[in-house]
């Protein structure tokens, strides 16, 4: 419920590390999310802003085909509880290689996460964003990006 954005942290809130070194093409950029202060006993939200290179898409969190790899954001922390991860509404797009429309994201979009703190103080929440990107003629192997998000529990 309470969302207090601390601009002081904005520039240094997130550290991005490519966790899968075998795959070098970065067609997905994770912009530094606004850091969050949350009051103990309440719920706060943090958004991860994603930007895909033009011409590329990633599967949504619920792809239409069982073999496709979904977009998935997960968080690990002992100081805050992840209440929910909310993905935007996907687009149903038809591609040269697909017989039926696929459930995808392209361009820029946000993934919002609701956190509920367990204890007061500053903490860093570790996130992993798993995705697999394609354009109309080729696909890039799945990749995992690590995200470090500081949260101040008041």
């Amino acid at each position, binding site marked *: 419920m309470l969302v207090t954005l601390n601009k002081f942290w904005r520039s240094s809130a997130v550290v991005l590390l490519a966790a899968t070194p075998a795959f070098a093409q970065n067609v997905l950029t994770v912009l530094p999310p606004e850091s969050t202060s949350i009051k103990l006993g309440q719920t706060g939200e943090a958004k991860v802003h994603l930007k895909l290179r033009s011409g590329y898409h990633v599967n949504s969190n619920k792809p239409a085909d069982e073999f*496709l790899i979904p977009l998935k954001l997960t968080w690990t922390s002992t100081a805050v509880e992840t209440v929910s991860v909310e993905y935007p509404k996907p687009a149903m797009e038809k591609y040269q290689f697909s017989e039926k429309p696929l459930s995808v994201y392209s361009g820029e979009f946000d993934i919002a996460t609701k956190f509920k703190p367990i204890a007061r103080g500053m903490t860093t929440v570790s996130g992993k964003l798993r995705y697999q990107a394609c354009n109309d003629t*080729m696909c890039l192997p799945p990749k995992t990006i690590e995200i470090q998000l500081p949260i101040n529990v008041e």
Partner: protein
Amino acid sequence: MRLITAMVVGLGLISCGSAPHARAAVKPAKERKKAPEFSLKDSTGKALKLSDLKGKVVLLNFWATWCGPCKIEIPWFIEFEQKYKDKGFAVLGVSMDEDGWKDVKPYVESKKINYRVVVGDDTTATLYGGVDSLPTTFIVDRDGKIAAVHVGLVSKSDYASDIEQVLAK
């Protein structure tokens, strides 16, 4: 970086002089480079080496079950295997699925793939320039040399043209 490496290696191997997606002409025989040897396992655990297919024209296809464009090509490759096998041709699929046969075997069975499939690894991919993008397909001649390479989805007729040219020599 690996894409650049792949492209450099690809260009070095066949000197096609074209960007990914573009039609890659079959390289003259005297200018072809040897296809790197590898040994990978099939669904039964049996090792298959590229050199086991020496003497055949091989369509070496790097693919994955999560790759949409790869799935368009697979029915073509099934058809090519059937159509050209008596002329000394074979398709070899190298799956780059991280979970290996757990994902690949059901797919191979459901699509009734009639050609050899093995599960690849980073070592093999590196030998072929990284294989950053899928599908990536090499046409290997009877002497085990790379005659053509395609990165990304290309037309069925392009593949057929390459195969027939390489089989004819």
